[in-house]
C-alpha cells in the first residue's frame, strides 16, 4: 500500500508541476498548450548542463531557466504580438520536442536517448515530490491571499478592468506565463534527473496535455489541479501494479490517459474557465 501511494506521488509529480504552471498562466489569461514542450525542454536542458558540468543542481537550475525562457516566448507571442495562443503553444511543442530530439544527436552523438548523467538521486526525488505539494499550497496562497495573485486573477477575468485600476495586463500575463514555464520545466527536471538520470526522446509522453486536463478538472485552482494530477498518478501506479495480471501492456499503458479523458468528458461542462482565458488583450494606452 505504501508502495502504491509512493508510486502515485512519483507518477503525479511531473504532472503537478506542469499543471501548476498551467493554472498560473491561465489565471492570467494565457492558455499554455506548450506545457508538453516546456517539460521536454526542462528535462533535456537539465541533462545537457549536468552532462557538461557534472553538477546535477546546475543542470536542474538550467532546466528551469530554459522552461522560463520558453514560457516567456509564449508570453511575448500571446501579449505583445497577440498570436493565437493555441497555435503559439503548439508551435512551442513542436520546437521543443523536435529541438530536443535533434539536440540529442548534436550533444551526445546518438539519437533516441542521452548518456547517463549526474542526477539528483533518491534524496532529490523525495525533495522534489514534497516540493511539488508545497508549491501547490504556495501558489494557492499567492493567488487567493496576496495582491499579486488578485492582480493575476483580475487580468484573466477582465484585463480592461485591471488596466483601469492601474495594472498592466500584458506585463502580468508575460510574467505569469514565464513563471508557469519554469514550473512545467521542473516537471521535466523531475522526470529526467530524479526519476531517471538521462533524457530519452518523447519522455514527456503527453504529461503536458494531461496537465492541461488537470487544470480544467481542478477548476483552475492549484489544489484542485494537484488533486487531479494525483488522480492521474494513481491510475499510472495502478497500471504498474496490474502489469502482472496478463492484460496486454499496451492496453494498460493507455489506462491513465483513458481515465483522464473520461474524467474530463464528464466534468468539463461544469467547469468555468477565467472569462478572458485565451483572449489576446489590446491595451487602451
Amino acid at each position: 500500500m505504501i508502495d502504491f501511494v509512493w508510486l502515485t506521488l512519483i507518477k503525479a509529480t511531473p504532472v503537478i508541476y506542469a499543471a501548476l504552471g498551467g493554472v498560473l498562466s491561465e489565471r492570467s489569461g494565457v492558455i499554455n498548450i506548450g506545457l508538453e514542450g516546456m517539460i521536454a525542454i526542462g528535462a533535456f536542458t537539465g541533462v545537457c548542463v549536468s552532462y557538461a558540468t557534472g553538477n546535477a543542481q546546475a543542470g536542474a537550475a538550467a532546466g528551469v531557466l530554459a522552461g522560463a525562457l520558453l514560457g516567456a516566448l509564449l508570453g511575448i507571442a500571446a501579449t505583445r504580438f497577440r498570436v493565437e495562443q493555441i497555435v503559439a503553444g503548439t508551435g512551442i511543442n513542436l520546437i521543443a520536442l523536435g529541438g530536443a530530439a535533434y539536440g540529442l544527436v548534436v550533444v551526445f552523438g546518438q539519437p533516441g536517448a542521452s548518456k547517463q548523467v549526474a542526477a539528483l538521486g533518491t534524496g532529490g526525488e523525495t525533495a522534489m515530490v514534497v516540493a511539488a505539494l508545497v508549491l501547490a499550497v504556495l501558489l494557492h496562497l499567492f493567488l487567493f491571499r496576496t495582491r499579486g495573485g488578485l492582480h493575476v486573477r483580475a487580468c484573466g477575468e477582465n484585463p480592461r478592468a485591471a488596466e483601469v485600476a492601474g495594472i498592466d495586463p500584458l506585463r502580468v500575463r508575460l510574467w505569469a506565463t514565464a513563471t508557469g514555464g519554469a514550473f512545467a520545466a521542473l516537471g521535466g527536471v523531475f522526470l529526467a534527473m530524479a526519476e531517471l538520470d538521462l533524457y530519452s526522446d518523447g519522455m514527456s509522453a503527453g504529461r503536458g496535455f494531461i496537465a492541461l486536463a488537470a487544470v480544467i478538472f481542478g477548476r483552475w485552482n492549484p489544489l484542485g489541479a494537484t488533486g487531479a494530477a494525483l488522480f492521474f498518478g494513481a491510475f499510472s501506479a495502478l497500471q504498474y501494479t496490474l502489469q502482472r495480471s496478463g492484460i496486454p501492456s499496451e492496453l494498460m499503458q493507455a489506462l491513465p490517459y483513458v481515465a483522464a479523458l473520461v474524467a474530463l468528458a464528464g466534468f468539463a461542462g461544469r467547469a468555468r474557465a477565467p472569462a478572458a482565458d485565451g483572449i489576446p488583450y489590446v491595451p487602451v494606452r
Partner: protein
Amino acid sequence: MESRGPVGLVHQHFELVDRLTVWENVLLGREPRRGWRIDVAAARAQVNELAARHGLAVDPDALVETLPIGIKQRVELLRELEREPAILLLDEPTAVLAPSEIASFFATIVALARRGTAIMVVTHKLAEVIAYASTVSVMRAGKIVAQMQTAQTSVQALAQAMVGGELPPLAQRAATPNAAEPALRARRLSARSEADAIEEFDLEIAPGEIVGIAGVEGNGQTALADALAGTIPHDGTLELRGSRGTIPQDRQREGLVLDWTIAENVLLGRQRSPAFHKGPQIDRGASVAFAQEIIEQFDVRPPRPQAPMRGLSGGNQQKVVVGRALAGEPAFVLAYQPTRGIDVGAAALVQSRLIEARNAGSAILLVSFELDELFALADRIVVLFRGRIAGTFAREGFDRGRIGALMAGGS
C-alpha cells in the same frame, strides 16, 4: 488637458471583474496589505466606510456577477470615488437603470457635486440634463456647438442644437383597419438566451400595430427577440404569417458584415430570393439597384452602393439595417432598440419609417429602453419584468409613472 487632482471615469459598459467580490473590485490595485497578504478585514472596513460616506450601500463580500445592474453601477462608482477624484466623468450613466433608480442615482451625484466634486455627464437623455445639470454643452460632429445655463434652456432648444436645425416632425399615424387575424401570435413562449430569459410569454400583434416592450435591460428582451427571430430554441407555440424583417440589437455584430459593401449587405437575408439571382450567380445589378433604393429612402451617406460598410457612421449603418428590414412591406418586423447610439436626426428618420411601415400594415414589435421612444411609436406597451409580462397599456392609457413602477418590479 489639465486637471487639479485625479479624474474618475464611470463607463457606460461597466469595467468590473464579474467573478471578484465588491471589495476586490473597488480596491483593485490599491489593496491594503498586512505582511505578505491582503488585509481583508481592513479592505472590507474601507469599502464599508466609503459606501456609508456616499450613501451607496453595498455588501463588500458579494460576488459582482450576482449583483443587479444598478448595484454594479454603484460598485463602479465607488471604485472611482475611492480615488477621491477632482472630476468625475459619467458616460451614459442611466442607460441601464430603471426610472426609480435614476432618481436616486442623481440624488447621489448632486450630493457629490455639492461637496465639491466637478461632475461631467455624457448623455443623450435631454430631460435628465434639464433636471440635474447646471450647465450644458452640445456636441455635434466632434465640436462643441452650444454652451448654456440649463436654467435658461429647454429640451426643444437642446434637440435643435444637436441636429443643427429644426427636427422634422415624426410621420403621422394613420388609422389602420382592425384585422381578423393577428400577424404574430405567441402562446406560453419560454426561452433562454445568454443574457436573460422569458417565461410563458403570451403576445399577439395585429397587422398595422406597433407593440412596444418596456423594461430595464436584462429582463427578457434578448430572449424574446432571439426566440422570435428563431435563433434560439423555445417552448410554447409561435405562429407567424408571412415575411419578416429584423432590426437586431447589435448592428455591428448581428446585422452587418462590416468589410462588405452596402450592396452586399442589403442582400443578406435575401440571398436565396430569385429576384437577386441570374442563373446560379448573384445578380449584382439587382443588388446595387436595391441598395440604391434604400440609400435614397433613408438618405444614407455616402450615397454609393459600393461603399464599404465599415466607413459609414453608426447612424448610417443603422439606416441600412432598418432599410433592409422594412423593404418589401414585411408582415412582421422585429425592431430591437432601432435608434440605439445614433444621432437625433437619424433616429427621427428611423422612427418615421417605422410608423410608415405600421401604416402600410406591418405588425411591429419594438423593444426599447427609452420610454420616450415607446410613447412616440407604440400602439400598445407591454412591460417586461424578470421574463414575465408585468402589465399592458393601450395607447390611450399610457402612464409614465405606472409603467416606470412596473419596470422596477413594483405593482
